[in-house]
């Protein structure tokens, strides 16, 4: 368990018996149709979320992490987007096969999403109470007369002071942090088994960020839900994630426990990410090392390993063949031809 003052260190507690799988994604492929051809936003992505864990998906902007999350609930705007392959097994049910009505039953009730922009995710013309009640009304999970009561309870759960008054407020009367709390309350309303939090703290102050994340973690633990945390903020990941998937150019390039990723990264991209992140234990005067170049154009991805043009360990083979995601040990996977060790 972390204390308030713990530094950005990864949870090292090893798991003996992995918890049963809640959601399994297999070979998910999502493309976007653009004027100049197809953009392969998500390529053959496979991962699973276990019961009660916090799974992080980390990557640069445009690495396909948000699109992956949206694809799970089939929220990709179509056209131009399209899921062209793969399976999303939730409780043994393929979400990609469900009818529109059936997937709507899942959304918000079994799997809910929290979006990254608290300033715009609430409808400015509706009072908080009505919006908070929306998932409850849609899924009829609470009898009509009890909706308000449940809303108050939710607001208290996300620690909003004076909930009675907040219910009648409009979104513009709340601060960013409070709005994000309301969004979290909405996401939690139906006690979903999986919460997908897409950059839940990007738009918030650092102090508020910590509060929101802790809140999210505590509540998911209390409800025994799982959480998929999508972020580019490695500090966030270090503190709150159990396992981490690192995405690059629409693919998962490395997967492991938070400890693996932070202390024994094996993919050059992950290594680069670590080197480009400021650390408290760095010597003063140490400069950050950026990853040279920029993410590839996904409508025309490089041959072979998508990372090879930016990779300082690149070998001739990397240009020709794409490395598969291979298992290193129990929890640690990587997609790279080069065998890095701790001395890189």
């Amino acid at each position, binding site marked *: 368990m972390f204390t308030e003052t713990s530094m950005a260190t990864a949870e090292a507690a090893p798991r003996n018996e992995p918890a049963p799988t809640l959601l399994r994604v297999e070979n998910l492929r999502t493309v976007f149709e653009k004027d100049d051809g197809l953009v392969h936003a998500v390529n053959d992505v496979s991962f699973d979320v276990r019961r009660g864990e916090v799974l992080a998906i980390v990557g640069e902007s445009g690495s396909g992490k948000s699109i992956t999350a949206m694809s799970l609930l089939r929220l990709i705007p179509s056209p131009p987007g399209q899921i062209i392959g793969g399976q999303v097994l939730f409780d043994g049910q393929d979400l990609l096969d469900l009818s529109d009505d059936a997937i709507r*039953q899942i959304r*918000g009730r079994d799997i809910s999403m929290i979006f990254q922009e608290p300033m715009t995710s609430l409808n400015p013309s509706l009072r908080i109470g009505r919006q908070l009640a929306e998932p409850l009304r849609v899924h009829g999970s609470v009898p009509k007369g009890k909706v308000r009561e449940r809303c108050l309870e939710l607001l208290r759960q996300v620690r909003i*002071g004076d909930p009675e008054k907040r219910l009648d407020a409009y979104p513009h009367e709340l*601060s960013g942090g409070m709005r994000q709390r309301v969004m979290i309350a909405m996401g939690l309303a139906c006690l979903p088994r999986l919460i997908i939090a897409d950059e839940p703290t990007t738009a918030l102050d650092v102090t508020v960020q910590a509060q929101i994340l802790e809140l999210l973690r505590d509540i998911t633990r209390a409800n025994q839900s799982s959480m998929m945390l999508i972020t580019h903020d490695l500090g966030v990941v270090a503190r709150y994630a159990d396992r981490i998937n690192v995405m690059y150019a629409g693919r998962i390039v490395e997967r492991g426990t938070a400890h693996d990723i932070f202390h024994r990264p094996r993919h050059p991209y992950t290594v680069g990410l670590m080197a480009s992140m400021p650390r408290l234990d760095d010597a003063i005067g140490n400069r950050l090392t950026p990853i040279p170049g920029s993410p590839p154009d996904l409508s025309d991805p490089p041959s072979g390993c998508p990372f090879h043009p930016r990779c300082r360990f690149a070998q001739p083979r990397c240009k020709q063949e794409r490395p598969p995601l291979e298992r290193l040990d129990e929890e640690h996977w990587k997609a790279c031809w080069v065998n890095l060790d701790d001395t890189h």
Partner: protein
Amino acid sequence: MSLSIQPPAAATPATPPRRRNRPKALHFPRRLCKERPLGALGAMICLVLLLTGLFADVIAPEGFNAINPIERLKAPSAEHWLGTDQLGRDVFARIVHGAQLSVIVAFAATTLSIVISALLGILSGYFGGRLDMIIQRLVDGWMCFPDLILLIVAVAVLGPGTWQVILILGLLFGISGSRIVRGAVLSAKQNVYVHAAQSMGASSTRILLKHILPNVMAPLIVLYTTRLAAVILAESGLSFLGLGIPPPEPSWGGMLSLDGRSYMFQAPWLAIAPGIALTVAVFGINMFGDALRDLLDPRMRGGGGRYLARVKRTIGS
């Protein structure tokens, strides 16, 4: 970790709550007068117009069609407040009854046009894709024709009359207005909260009614009020051309053309009275519409007060 942690500081209210103890019914008129005085004036004008229309028979009981050749083309006097026309009919009575006609035509045609606009615009904007393409090409085709040509053809086909005018104007304004609604829907659809509602499992109908419609209300209100004024003007224009409401019905436009234009020099009041009536009505509706838009849209709340405060400061200094 348990949930019984004391609430963090950010959860306490940051701003003192706004007082809301005034009676609700009086809240809006008070804000109107305070923040948008011109809008209040517009509301007064609209109210007068509406009441005049409703109680035309009470205000001018002797009727707008009482022909009296002996009294023809009399200047305004105590007996005939606005004079008489070439048939000796009381101009004041005709203006009052004309208001009735204008009100009926304006509200009916505008309501029809808004319903058409909203329906087409929402279908087109929200569902998009092929449906959008088809609807928009039809609208394009419709808008290729000058309004006046469409009106003349429509009148030629349907014949003149009050209901025909309502139908034609409703259709005409409705179809062109659908573009505005479509645009508003398109931008409302992009809002994250629409995606959020989808991610919560809300159905299309629910999203349309709860999230899209309230956000296109502001443009719809503006559209409604500007259309209201435009319809009054268009009806007058049609009647002026002899395509609108046929005499002897006292349409303001018809009065301007048939009587006003012919006797402009002998009896200028024949043109001045309906002209002023039209101008005032259109001005009032527009002002009221603007104020409504500003006050009803929660996103613009408070703006008026600040604006007025600035004006007051400028005047004061």
